[in-house]
C-alpha cells in the first residue's frame, strides 16, 4: 500500500515537473524537413538565446496542420507557419489571434506584399518559376518568357505541382493580358499546355526525384526548393521570365487562445529582425520581407531573390485572399480540364 502511495506521489511530481516545462516552451507549428530546420536555425535558436525559452516544433503538411487546428478547439500550438493564402483560411475560421502590431516593432519595415491580414504577416518570400535541367532541354529554349513553356519542343517534359494550380493559372492569365481575378481569360492557353505536361508532382521530395532522374526536366518550382536541390547536387537552373515570376510568401500568425502570446510576439519580432532575415536568405535563399535586411551580395544576385522594392513589385502577385477563396474552384477546373487529359 505504502509503495502504491509512493508511486502515485512520484508520478504526480513528475507530471508536475513536466507541466512546468511545457509552460516554459513556445510551441511552433511548421512544415518538416528543411523548413523546420530553417526556422530553428535562423529564428528559434536566436529566440532561445534572447529569452531563455525553449522552442518545440510540431511538424506536418500545410493542410494537415490546418485541419488539426480546426478540430482541436483550443490552441495546441502558439505560432503557426503556413503559406499566405492558407493563413487566410486560419483567419477566416477564427484560428488566429488579431495581431497587435505595436508588439512587433520590426514589422514596420515589412514590404507591403507581406502585410497580409490583421491576423498574419509574411516571414520570407520566394518565387515560383521555371526550373530546368540545362543538359536535358533543347539549347535554343532559354525561358526568357513564360511563353517558352508552350514551345512544342518541350512536349512531355514539364511537371507542375499537383496541389495548387494557382501559379500556372496566374501565368496563363497574364500571358492573355488578364490577371488571376479574371483567370477565365487564360483557360484556352492552359489547355494548349497539355501536350507539354508530363506529370504533376505531389510534394517537394517527389519534385526533387522527378527532376533529379530527368523524368521531368522542366518544372514549375519554388525557388527555395530549387536552391535546396542544387545544394544536394541536382543540376538545375532557375529562369526569370520577363513577365515576372510568381510571388509566394510564407507567413506566421499566433494561434487563437495561445497562453504564450507575449512570447509569440517576441518570436515574431525576432523573426523580422534584419539579422535574422539576412540569415534566412543565407541558409535557404528565402527573400527578406523587411526592407532593412542586408543580404550577402552573392546571395542577393541569385535568380528569385527579392531584395529591392522593384524586384518585389516585378513579381506576379496574386492576392492571397483571392487564392484562399478560389483554390477549390481553380483546382476543380484544373482537375477536370487539364489533369484529366
Amino acid at each position, binding site marked *: 500500500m505504502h509503495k502504491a502511495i509512493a508511486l502515485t506521489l512520484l508520478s504526480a511530481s513528475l507530471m508536475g515537473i513536466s507541466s512546468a516545462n511545457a509552460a516554459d516552451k513556445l510551441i511552433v507549428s511548421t512544415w518538416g524537413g528543411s523548413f523546420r530546420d530553417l526556422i530553428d536555425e535562423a529564428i528559434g535558436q536566436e529566440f532561445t538565446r534572447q529569452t531563455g525559452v525553449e522552442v518545440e516544433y510540431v511538424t506536418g503538411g500545410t493542410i494537415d496542420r490546418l485541419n488539426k487546428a480546426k478540430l482541436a478547439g483550443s490552441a495546441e500550438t502558439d505560432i503557426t507557419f503556413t503559406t499566405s493564402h492558407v493563413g487566410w483560411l486560419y483567419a477566416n475560421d477564427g484560428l488566429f489571434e488579431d495581431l497587435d502590431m505595436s508588439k512587433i516593432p520590426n514589422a514596420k519595415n515589412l514590404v507591403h506584399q507581406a502585410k497580409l491580414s490583421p491576423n498574419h504577416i509574411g516571414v520570407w518570400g520566394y518565387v515560383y518559376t521555371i526550373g530546368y535541367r540545362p543538359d536535358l532541354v533543347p539549347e535554343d529554349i532559354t525561358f526568357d518568357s513564360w511563353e517558352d513553356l508552350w514551345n512544342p519542343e518541350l512536349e512531355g517534359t514539364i511537371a507542375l505541382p499537383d496541389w495548387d494550380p494557382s501559379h500556372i493559372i496566374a501565368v496563363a492569365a497574364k500571358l492573355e493580358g488578364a490577371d488571376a481575378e479574371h483567370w477565365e481569360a487564360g483557360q484556352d492557353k492552359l489547355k494548349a499546355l497539355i501536350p507539354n505536361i508530363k*506529370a504533376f508532382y505531389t510534394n517537394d521530395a517527389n519534385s526533387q526525384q522527378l527532376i533529379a532522374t530527368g523524368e521531368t526536366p522542366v518544372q514549375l518550382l519554388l525557388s527555395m526548393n530549387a536552391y535546396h536541390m542544387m545544394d544536394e547536387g541536382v543540376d538545375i537552373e532557375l529562369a526569370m521570365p520577363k513577365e515576372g515570376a510568381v510571388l509566394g510568401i510564407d507567413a506566421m500568425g499566433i494561434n487563437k487562445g495561445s497562453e504564450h502570446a507575449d512570447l509569440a510576439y517576441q518570436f515574431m519580432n525576432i523573426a523580422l529582425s534584419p539579422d535574422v532575415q539576412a540569415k534566412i536568405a543565407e541558409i535557404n535563399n528565402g527573400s527578406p520581407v523587411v526592407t532593412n535586411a542586408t543580404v550577402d551580395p552573392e546571395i542577393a544576385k541569385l535568380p528569385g531573390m527579392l531584395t529591392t522594392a522593384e524586384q518585389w513589385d516585378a513579381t506576379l502577385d496574386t492576392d492571397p485572399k483571392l487564392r484562399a477563396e*478560389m483554390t477549390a474552384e481553380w483546382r476543380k477546373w484544373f482537375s477536370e480540364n487539364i489533369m484529366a487529359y
Partner: protein
Amino acid sequence: MTRKPAFVGWFLLPAMLTALGLTIAMLTVLQYSVRAYIPGSLDVGGFTLDNFQDLLKGLYARAFLNTVWLSFKTALFGLLLSYPLAYTLVRTRTAWLKSCILIIAITPLFLGEVVRTYSWIIVLGNSGFLNSLLLAIGLIDKPLQLMFTNTGVVLALVHVTMPIMVLMLATGLSHIDIAYEKAATSLGASPFRAFLTITLPLSLPGVVASVTTAFAWTFSAFATPQLIGGGRVSTVATLVYQLGFSSLNFPFAAALSMAGLAMTVVLLAALKRMTRPLQNVGTH
C-alpha cells in the same frame, strides 16, 4: 453446458471500441457529403445533394471505372505471380529455397508502401533500372514510358499486394492433404493433371480470399497511384486527396469517399456471390 469465463467479454472491448470509433468517423464523413462547400473556409454550409450530382461528371466516372480496372488487373496479375511462389513455398522440401521464397515474398511487408513506391520510381523511370536493362540488351531502342501510366501503377501495385497474396495462398495450399495428389498420381495421373484436377480446385477458397483482399486493397490504394501515376492516373483515392487536401472541398471529397465505399461494398458482394460455389470446395 459450459459457460464462458466472464473475462472473455472484456477481450472484445478493444475491437468494439475500434468499431464504434470507425462508425462515428464514417457517419461524420457521411454528414460532410451532404453539406455545401463554402469557398475560403473550412466550415460547411447547409444540406445539399449537389456533391453526389457532380460525381456523374466524366472525370469522376472515369476515375471510378479506372479504379475498378486497376484493381482487377492487380488482383489478376498478383494471383498469376503469387500462386507459383506460394505453391513452391508449401510443397518444396528444400530448406534454402523455402527461406529464399519467404525472404523475397515477405520482406517487402517490412517496408512502408511509400518507400516501396519510391523504389519503383527508380526502377520504372526513363533512365531507371528496367529501361536501362532493356536498352542495354537491345530489346528496345528508346525508353518505354512506364512512369505516369496505368501499366506502371499496376506493376507497383502488384508488388505491393503480392506479399499478402502469397501468404494467403500458401495458407490455403498448406491445408490440402498431399495424399490426394499422391493418390491421383498412383492411379496414373501426371503431376500436371493431378495439379489441375486436385490441387487447383481445392485451393480455390484461398484464391478467392486472396483475390478479394487484393481487389479491396487496391481499390483504396493511395500512395502508389499518386506517386507512380504522377497525376495522370486518376483513382478514387487520389481524387479524394486532391479534392480534400488540395482544394479544401471536404464536402465533395466526402461524397466521393462515400461513393467509393458503396462501390467497394457492391463489388465485393458481387464477387462473393459469384464465387460462392468455390468457397466451400474441399471442405468436409
